[in-house]
């Protein structure tokens, strides 16, 4: 195996490099701290490889642009933060119903509104899940190291292509702005998934018909001779709008189930010192790093704590959390918000064990010392 490149890399840079490796050839965005480097680096790197970068007039235009670009067959991404993420919600819903693969990065900052522009927060957990209206499912990934940002960005594109859905990459300011050692995987270690194109010719093509055995409809690209209609309205297999109640029921159900029926494929997580743990921390992103330091310190004192770190935060790792809950005396959800993931973990684990939370919303990363004393308080 060829030797991997070792570099000092910033989180936001790893996101751009991962995206380009995954096949991103179009980026549209409106810069906002702490995500701005993603736009800057996309602007610098995409033109050199035949890609396109557009700075749009605002966030709504940005997400609209990436949806359009994806429909022409180009893997597309946009990045933003808190208030910009709010603005993109309408477009995210459009991508959900029209089944257009795309990646939306939200490097979170303190909120609501313009909030704390340069400080970390994990307050968009629920906005990522339910920010756009209507019944839908969504895939949300949450990395906690620079290397994980690289890998997870690639995975975000792969899942977007495979399930024809917008995928949200939630990031923490802490990791987005810090630099750390990263070993870049070689090409032969990376799997790239591309959307399935239609096998039938244009006259027989039904843009929203799912073939027997497939998860999603085959996707033609505009500009390749296939004429089809794309809409945010409920549509039939033809892509044309309809008010038919039966079709509406079928479509919404299919859009939700294509994700919920494939949770095992979509869910990714890390288990840390769980084998003999009688007490478990659930943490994600930067907070999971603090939790690891805390766990190592607690273990030195003989306290058997482990961690379950979801990397896919939506859909949830229901089965895994349930299994852990049956074995341990307590689960503590540690997050930089006022309990957004806690309530969901409690919904799953609360029947089997005690579920507690520790959180903070002052714009500072939770420290290992705080976690140690929280766990010790019992």
């Amino acid at each position, binding site marked *: 195996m060829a030797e991997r490149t*070792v*570099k*000092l890399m910033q989180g936001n840079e790893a996101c751009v490099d991962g995206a380009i490796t995954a096949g991103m050839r179009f980026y549209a965005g409106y810069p906002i701290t702490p995500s701005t480097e993603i736009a800057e680096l996309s602007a610098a790197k995409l033109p050199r490889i035949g890609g396109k970068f557009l700075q749009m007039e605002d966030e709504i235009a940005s997400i609209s642009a990436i949806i359009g670009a994806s429909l022409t067959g180009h893997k597309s991404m946009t990045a933003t933060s808190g208030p910009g993420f709010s603005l993109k919600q309408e477009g995210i819903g459009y991508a959900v119903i029209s089944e257009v693969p795309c990646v939306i990065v939200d490097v979170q900052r303190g909120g609501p509104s313009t909030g704390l*522009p*340069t400080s970390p927060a994990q307050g968009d957990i629920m906005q990522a899940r339910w920010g756009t209206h209507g019944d839908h499912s969504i895939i949300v990934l949450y990395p906690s190291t620079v290397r994980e940002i690289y890998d997870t960005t690639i995975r975000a594109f792969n899942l977007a292509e495979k399930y024809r859905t917008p995928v949200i990459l939630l990031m923490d300011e*802490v*990791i987005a*702005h*810090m*630099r*750390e*050692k990263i070993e870049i995987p070689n090409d032969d270690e990376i799997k790239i998934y591309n959307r399935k194109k239609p096998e039938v010719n244009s006259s027989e093509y039904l843009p929203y018909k799912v073939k027997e055995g497939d998860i999603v409809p085959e996707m033609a690209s505009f500009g390749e001779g296939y004429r089809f209609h794309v809409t945010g309205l409920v549509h039939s297999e033809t892509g044309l709008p309809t008010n038919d109640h039966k079709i509406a029921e079928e479509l919404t159900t299919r859009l939700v189930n294509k994700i919920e029926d494939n949770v095992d494929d979509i869910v990714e997580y890390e288990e840390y010192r769980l084998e003999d743990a009688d007490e478990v921390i659930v943490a994600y992103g*930067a907070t999971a*790093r*603090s939790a*690891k*330091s805390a766990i*190592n310190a607690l273990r030195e004192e003989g306290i058997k704590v482990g961690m379950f770190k979801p990397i896919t935060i939506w859909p949830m790792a229901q089965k895994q959390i349930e299994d852990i809950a049956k074995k341990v005396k307590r689960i503590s959800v540690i997050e930089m918000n006022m309990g957004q993931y806690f309530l969901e973990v409690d919904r799953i684990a609360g029947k089997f064990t005690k579920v507690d939370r520790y959180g903070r919303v002052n714009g500072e*990363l939770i*420290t*290992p*010392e705080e976690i140690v004393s929280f766990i010790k308080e019992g």
Partner: protein
Amino acid sequence: MRRQELRLSGSGGQGLILAGIILAEAALHDGKNVVQSQSYGPEARGGASKAEVIISDDIINYPKVNKCDMLLSLTQKACDKYIDSLKPGGVLILDNTVTEHPNRDDIKIYSIPILETAEDTLNKPMVANIIALGSIYQLTKVVSKESLEKAVLSRVPRGTEELNKKALGEGFKLIKNHKDSSYGEVC
């Protein structure tokens, strides 16, 4: 090597974030694990600025500097703000324009003319950060000299290599010539 935490503080425009990146890259060349982060105000110049570097043989989980082993402060404001974060037994490098020294007897203080050397000896105020790196190396040996030189030369603009090498050398000298340099290595 146990976890070493270094904090470089001053005002925006002094190149401290670049200095932090260079130090981190030098540690990377040495085969260490490293995390570098920064904070700054909304201003491009003049606001408070700090860069942090954590170097360790072990995996670095918690990525922030809490109590640091070494603090560099190029301004009075930065010194006042961060002095409490320096560990007992830690090293404080102050530019000699910082005149009010902290009232702590559990740390080693080095007051050296970093900004003046950049301005008067090298006629380039912008190399103060590289001089500071030279002094940090000479005092802490937290990275190897070869790696530091390599990291500096790969990050500075083309055509300024000689100037920056000279700046590093001036940084070494500021500590070597310091009357109290017997304290020596802290790592």
